[in-house]
């Protein structure tokens, strides 16, 4: 283990590079989780639709994503898709992560939508709303509030999964840590430093989710 003073001085010296890397990690996470929420909502709605074929499409997507490791998906999107159309490095990584997060998020949404009492839909329908209007105005707002805690959890998982983008040349936190570590023959110091940065990010995310939850809970009263 490195000495504490060595750790502190290295931490100070490498602040610049690590903060750049932290920004990239945060960008990757935010873009991929937000895209994942859109993808997830889309597939959750397919899944609960009355139209069976749409449900199968959603099932197939979830099966594909949950059935293969994230690193395999990233490599396929990065190397495989470029033969069809060339997406920039950042977007290859962000799309792979979004595609991955989307499957888990679709299950979160499906669960929370199905947890809303049937009577809510019936009440909306009896007021003359169409099914889709009742879905948008009554079911989804309630479902979203229930989905928030698991969504926050998925955000944190997504943040840590973004470290796998290191393998497709993204200079995000983990890549910077291992590169500097092997440069200076001092892996442990840099791994400890990068752990601190991840903890800071996760703490900030947790805080943000808590604030959002409190805000949405107000309308319950």
């Amino acid at each position, binding site marked *: 283990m490195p000495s504490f003073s060595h750790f502190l001085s290295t931490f100070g010296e490498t602040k610049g590079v690590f903060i750049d*890397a932290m920004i990239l990690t945060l960008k990757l996470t935010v873009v991929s989780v937000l895209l994942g929420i859109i993808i997830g909502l889309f597939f959750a709605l397919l899944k609960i639709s009355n139209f069976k074929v*749409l449900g199968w499409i959603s099932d197939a997507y979830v099966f594909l994503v949950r059935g293969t490791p994230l690193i395999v998906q990233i490599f396929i999107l990065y190397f495989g898709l470029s033969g069809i159309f060339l997406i920039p490095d950042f977007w290859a990584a962000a799309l792979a992560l979004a595609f991955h997060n989307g499957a888990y998020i679709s299950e979160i949404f499906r669960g929370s939508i199905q947890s809303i009492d049937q009577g809510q839909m019936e009440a909306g329908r009896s007021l003359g709303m169409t099914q*889709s209007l009742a879905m948008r105005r009554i079911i989804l707002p309630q479902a979203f509030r229930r989905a928030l805690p698991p969504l926050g959890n998925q955000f944190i998982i997504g943040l840590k999964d973004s470290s796998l983008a290191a*393998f497709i040349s993204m200079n995000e936190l983990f890549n*910077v840590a291992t590169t500097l570590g092997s440069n200076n023959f001092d892996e442990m110091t840099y791994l400890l430093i990068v752990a601190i940065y991840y903890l800071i990010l996760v703490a900030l995310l947790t805080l943000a989710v808590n604030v959002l939850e409190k805000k949405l809970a107000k309308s319950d009263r």
Partner: protein
Amino acid sequence: MMKKNILLFISILFLISILSACAEKDKLADGSELVNKDEFVFAASGEFAPFSYMTNDMKMKGFDVEVGNAVAKEMGLKPVPKRLKFKGIVEGVKTGRADAAVASHTINPLRSKHVAFTTPYYYSGPQIFTRPDSKIKTADDLKGKEVAVAKGSTYADVAGKHTSNLKMYDSDITALKALDGGRHDAVITDFVTGKTARKEGFKIEGRQLIERSEQAIVIPKDNPKLVKRVNDALENLRKDGTLKKISMKYFGEDITTKPE
């Protein structure tokens, strides 16, 4: 129900349009193709000091990178070095992630099936490295010994001819570091890499130089015009002494001319 059909139709249309859109590279007047028309994007691993390595502010430097820069400038293009894991570089060049790889790739028949090579920009060879107290002297002594090499390098094949006990590492430097730390019996890697590691304070010694190898720039097979352009650039750089100058800076000797 109508709405859902439309939704399904749109999503299928969207998928088809994504799948049919083709990755078009920019075509230049002489028929060569580049990812971006003003840039020469070349890949290196950044894990193969002193050929390519990362500085502490995450910039890639080294002999390969300087050669790539010089080639780009000679062709009148902006050099864009790009870092890719060594085992992914050939795939990256094939799939258009980079125009070329200036990454110390040794010319060999297996690689030639998948990608095109330019003329060699340096000459080297795999060498056996051991700890100073080792009795291993030549390749024949490697029989049954544990030899560490970098994944995806040609040294794995070289080592495989002499022993079946191979250990794979992500990079040559980690393999040498493990050797220095008391693991494995030997490492087979480029003689320049080993020499540099020794200078860095690794407790290792070079033994037999197994064979001679030629290192060249890797370019996709479907881009022969670019091969010609890079070859012309390399020839100019050889003639005006630029390659020699870069070599002297890094190694104190000229490794860019064919040894007698």
